[in-house]
């Protein structure tokens, strides 16, 4: 079992692992001849299935060898350490990654070559003073082109093919609405603001106003935040086929909502829809396109903090299409820009977010 490659798109790789690490600590990394996939399935919250073409992050020297079909290697990778290790390659001269073993424990080992840090300012004059002894060091600001090698070892686990056989992408019904999301930075800021409003009642406890505190108590019980991530404030997100998106929160104390309009609902490709043109005509989204008013909206309810973490993918800078399965799920397709990655249009991240009941 061998895997070795130079890393081409270090920054994209950092952003990818950074976004994924918000949703889970461990990813299933699947490498084969054509693709690298990252899958995060947390116990609670959103699942991510990322598929990248090899040439989008790795150089041409990518080599993979495995007894399994299509040279497949399955690894369990801790995202935090991997992200951190990649970060040290940010301003590197070169960076490569390989699967290796140390003391019989499998590792993803990164070898990073950086220019040796150069001290600026006062300490340099110190070098200058000694320049007669070290003529190579004599040029201030350019004391030779020395290199420093960093190796970062990330402990991983090799998964046997049988262990991942049963893991499949979630199935979902045909979505009623698909819409291109507004800039994620904006969406994230607003969503977080709303989430915070949902959390706010918890923190008013210090008030001495008796009337207010009893009100707050009710609210606290209502929102019930003390549990895990599944029990935080819920945001209601809805969209229609007329280019409109709403996001809001409702608590006992307040109702607040933001609405976007003029967004685009991308056309479905008949070749991708079951039944071709006929299938497209019967597609739920085609029906929704003809509806007006409240019934034209498809709505899901998501956990505010989890949603905020999902939107962390905005750093990748891709186009995001949200597919609404009314009351059931929200699926985000993040199409990664080919300029940031080394190429390949087929790199896409899919987020599966389950809707809470009303």
């Amino acid at each position: 079992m061998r895997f070795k490659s130079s890393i081409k798109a270090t920054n994209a790789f950092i952003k990818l692992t950074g976004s994924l690490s918000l949703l889970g600590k461990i990813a299933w990394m699947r490498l084969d001849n054509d693709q690298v996939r990252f899958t995060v399935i947390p116990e609670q919250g959103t699942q991510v299935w990322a598929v990248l073409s090899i040439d989008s992050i790795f150089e041409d020297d990518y080599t993979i060898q495995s007894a399994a079909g299509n040279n497949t290697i399955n690894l369990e990778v801790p995202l935090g350490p991997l992200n951190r290790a990649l970060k040290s390659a940010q301003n590197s001269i070169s960076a490569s990654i390989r699967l290796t073993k140390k003391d019989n424990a499998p590792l993803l080992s990164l070898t990073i070559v950086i220019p040796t840090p150069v001290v600026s300012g006062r300490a340099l004059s110190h070098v200058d003073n000694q320049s007669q002894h070290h003529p190579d060091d004599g040029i201030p600001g350019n004391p030779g082109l020395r290199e420093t090698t960093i190796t970062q070892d990330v402990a991983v686990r090799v998964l046997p093919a049988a262990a991942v056989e049963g893991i499949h992408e979630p199935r979902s019904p045909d979505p009623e609405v698909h819409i291109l999301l507004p800039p994620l930075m904006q969406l994230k800021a607003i969503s977080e603001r709303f989430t915070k409003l949902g959390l706010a009642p918890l923190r008013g406890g210090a008030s001495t106003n008796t009337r207010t505190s009893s009100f707050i108590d009710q609210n606290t019980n209502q929102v019930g935040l003390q549990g895990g991530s599944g029990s935080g404030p819920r945001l209601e997100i809805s969209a229609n086929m007329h280019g409109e998106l709403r996001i809001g929160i409702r608590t006992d104390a307040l109702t607040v909502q933001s609405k976007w309009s003029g967004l685009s609902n991308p056309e479905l490709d008949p070749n991708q829809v079951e039944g071709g043109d006929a299938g497209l005509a019967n597609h739920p989204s085609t029906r929704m396109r003809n509806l007006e008013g409240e019934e034209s909206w498809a709505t899901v309810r998501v956990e505010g903090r989890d949603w905020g973490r999902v939107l962390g993918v905005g750093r990748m800078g891709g186009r995001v299409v949200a597919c609404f399965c009314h009351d059931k799920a929200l699926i985000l397709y993040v199409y990664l820009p080919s300029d940031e990655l080394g190429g390949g249009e087929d790199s896409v991240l899919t987020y599966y977010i389950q809707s809470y009941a009303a």
Partner: protein
Amino acid sequence: MTTLEFTLSPEAAIRIHDAVSCLAKFNENVGFEASRDKLTINALNSSKTSSASFTLQGNTFFQSYRFASGARLPNGAEAPWTCSILNKALLSIFKDRVIVSSEGESSVERCEVSVQERPDRTQCRFGIKIFCRHGVKKIYKLTYEPIQIPRPLFDPRTCRNRWKIAAYVLKTFSEFFGPRAENLDMFHDDGRVTFTCYTEKIVFKDEVLKQPLHTAITLETADFEEFDVEDKVHAGISVKDFKAIILHAETLKASISALYSYPTRPMQLSYTENGMQCEFTLQTLGEFRGSSVAPASNVIRPTLSRPPTRQSAQGLALQEIREQTVNSMPPPPQPVGRSFSQMASQRTTRPSPPPPKASVNEESLFVPDDDEEDRVWGARNYEEEDEGELRWESARSTTISFGKLQSNSTTTRGYESAPQSEEGRIAPTQRMSQIKGLFDD
């Protein structure tokens, strides 16, 4: 009577702040040792494996410095005066934002410190006066505890290995270390030096993935300003100490010198800038994986005649300063509920003091918070945010806190805005009844 008086320039006050926040990573108390021509502030960690000390030269570091001891050593010389002060108290006085205003200018014009210890006074305090612009004067009175300050035994003559490198270079490297790694090993082999950051832990099978990063950084000996180290000698220290030291050295843009002999013997890291001599004595760890070669036999080790310091494997060999004289002044009386240190010890009833709390979030120092991207796109921490939120002003309804009275300044902004917990607040040094009002006389 013992008198200690010194004046600090704004720059020196900032340097005191930097030193105190560095010491905070070693111990919750700061030890002071004053003698005729210098003042030393130091800290020893609770496991006695690392000691940090900053020696401030009386004539170069201070604007003025005066020390007169009330006690004499048996040989007739003046006895040094020693005391210990809670680090948190000093940190909050010399806090960054108190000394440097938001515009980056110093709002402090001068800082005067005076201690007068007189046997006939029931109340002896460590007095700090900060003179700010616009005539604002802040007066702090801290209680202190007379203690004996242990000194690590370190003999540079036994150290065959030495190197010197700019702190900036090491700081750059430390940013590559994993956040939870514990040990740092330095190893020299054939013209190359490897810094390895690792965690020695028996990891259970299921927890393999929780293992911190293992980082190795290799550079050439030519990257050092000075380098004279035997081949294949390991030196291992704690990453936490290392980070604390280089962070401080980097603020001074200093170059760090290291002196060491072989594993389990102490290592000294030092640098001197602007009349401030910084010395850190660290217990080195045992063998790292492979073995170091035996120390070269030709090394002269004059101290070997001394009984071998076996305890050095567990902690630094410490030398208590026992030259305290008979004439020494008794500790200031500390009625229950009044003194600073007593209050502190009452709150923490645990037998062993908690590990020193760094003034700044340890991790955030090295996982730089200024990573704009992670801040914008990362998970938002709703629990710890505070800014820009509407809240009831509850402070008024609660009883007046003693802590706020400690600063007699016209502004208590420094305290109010500090995210300090109830425990972090500075305890009173005086009874309410002892505070003189403006018109009392």
